[in-house]
């Protein structure tokens, strides 16, 4: 059976087409201002890759910030549920899932069957979100993806004066001006990120295995910093792009929906 999952986030949109639990094609693009535009783009380009057409898709589930505004989906499912399911597919042993998206940070705890038992999202302040890293990388004039590699080389990481994204940014500029080694600044940024996240995760109680999804999971620096802060090993996802977790979850739900299961 062929199903599709669409994840329209505030910064990026993703789509995945699955056949009997295998990924046929997937894509990640920068979101357009209107969610339905993003949805059209991602579904069409994933279809292209596979040479399939919309009619081949038995069922399509939408998730993410703009999920309610996607016209062609059968059902909308919350990103929390989708990320949990997707993470579980990416790593069947996962019991704690940390998803750091562009605009928020979610922590989810699952039972052995993969059912979600507890979750929390941060939304008072952007410290500890992907956006935080993005802003910092921009200030430092490095690629977001390089932030991790850089920080690993750091001998003595700086401490940022404030957790506020904007003020931390001011801090980073200061350090740049003081000619602080760039890897130490990068490490400082990742530590700030990690300490904010560890506070969040700790509130749902961590169980092994722990895995990370979302774009930030690709930042090895943050992952190691977080491992240090939490004092636990975070299992790296190799099966596929961790940023796709939400879309994968949606596609899996699509399969469940068409089997008449209740979501």
């Amino acid at each position, binding site marked *: 059976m062929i199903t599709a999952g669409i994840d329209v986030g505030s910064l990026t949109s993703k789509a995945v087409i699955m056949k009997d639990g295998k990924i046929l094609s997937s894509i990640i693009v920068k979101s357009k201002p209107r969610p339905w535009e993003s949805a059209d783009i991602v579904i069409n380009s994933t279809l292209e890759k596979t040479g399939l057409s919309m009619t081949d898709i038995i069922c399509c589930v939408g998730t993410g*910030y703009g999920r309610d505004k996607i016209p062609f989906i059968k059902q909308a499912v919350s990103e*929390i549920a989708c990320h949990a399911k997707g993470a579980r597919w990416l790593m069947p042993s996962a019991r704690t899932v940390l998803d750091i998206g562009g605009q928020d940070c979610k922590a989810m705890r699952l039972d052995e069957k993969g059912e979600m038992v*507890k*979750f929390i999202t941060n*939304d*008072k302040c952007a410290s500890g979100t992907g956006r935080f890293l993005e802003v910092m990388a921009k200030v430092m004039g490095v690629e977001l993806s390089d932030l991790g590699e850089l920080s690993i080389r750091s001998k003595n990481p700086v401490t940022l004066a404030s957790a506020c994204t904007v003020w931390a940014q001011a801090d980073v500029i200061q350090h740049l001006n003081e000619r602080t080694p760039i890897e130490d600044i990068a490490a400082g940024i990742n530590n700030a990120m990690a300490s904010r996240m560890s506070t969040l995760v700790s509130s749902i109680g961590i169980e092994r295995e722990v895995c990370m999804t979302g774009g930030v999971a690709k930042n090895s620096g943050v992952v190691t910093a977080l491992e240090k802060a939490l004092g636990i090993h975070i299992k790296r996802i190799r099966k596929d792009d961790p940023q796709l977790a939400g879309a994968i979850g949606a596609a899996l739900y699509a399969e469940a929906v068409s089997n008449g299961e*209740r979501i």
Partner: protein
Amino acid sequence: MNKFIEAISALENNYVNEWKNRGGRVVGYTCAYVPDEILHSAGLLPFRVRGFSAADTTIGDTYFGPFICSLPKCMLQLAGEGKFGFLDGIIITPGCDSMRRLDECWRKAGDDIEGIIPGFFFHFGVPHKFTDYTVKWFTEETKRLIGALNSHFGADINNDKLSESIKLYNRSRELLARFDSLRTREAPPFTGTEALGVVLAGTALPREIYNSILEDYISEMSEAPGIPGRSRIMLVGSANDDLDLVRIIEGSGGLVAADNLCFGSRLYSDFVDENINPIDALVARYLSHNECPRMYGDYKKRLLSLKEKIKSANIDGVILQNIRFCDLHGSENGLFERDLEKEGIPCMRLEREYGPLVETGRMKMRIDAFLERLDRRMVPR
């Protein structure tokens, strides 16, 4: 229903206006530990002060510091904008640390802004536990309040009047108990949003009028068709007079079938004993009323009453919400979550802002996820 909505959708509703036009006087209070009966027996209209409809907290942030609950900030905002101009008096309690400081902040705002201080301004010291000597203190404190009301408003509160008021308010409690039982039906005749509206109206209406519309509403609803097939939610935690919070939950497909909020069931649970001295009876009811975590060392009792409600209202899941910086509810919610989940009752903790700071998108995301979790564990209807 319209009558209720009308009464709560504006601070100064028509009933209050009529009351004022007839030369009646209105006294506001900030906390469910203030006995309405006393104000009523003084011929005053008791009015529970709210923070709803504040568009921002510019004035609130001027006097309160940054790490303070947004509810009193919104109340101060409205006070500063003169929205409480219709109040002839205000009673503030040490309900919690954020709320008690509304006393000073309101007074100091009064130094800067003309005419926002009600003529009668009273700090009502409610103890934080229930024992013989706290009862003694609270009795004296209650008498102090009565004395102050008598001298300021030229009222003459006496035992007979108090007993009358107690009867009237017990009548309300009786009606509201019946009203509650309707919510426990398999298919409740009204939504949680409507339910909150009905209870809220009680804090803004002359009690005689309230009782009569309430009675009509109940008899009308007892016949009404129910709302079936929704996850039954219990709403627990910080003060909430915001219909929209309940709307978001019900908009996502839940139905709030019970609560233990101080703008909700806490207002009317427990009767006042009509067979003993009225002041002792009021003191006993209001101080022994331990539903609020401000009463220290009573966690187990509160957990128990929560469990009873969950059972009687046949609740599928509990939403444990607290306004940011409300540590009393916030951390008790942590204990509730631990102890209820242990018994297989799904819970979700929800930290939120009050009023103008609410951001519905993010709230909805969390509530949707919780309801999905409930749906999955429920047998398909």
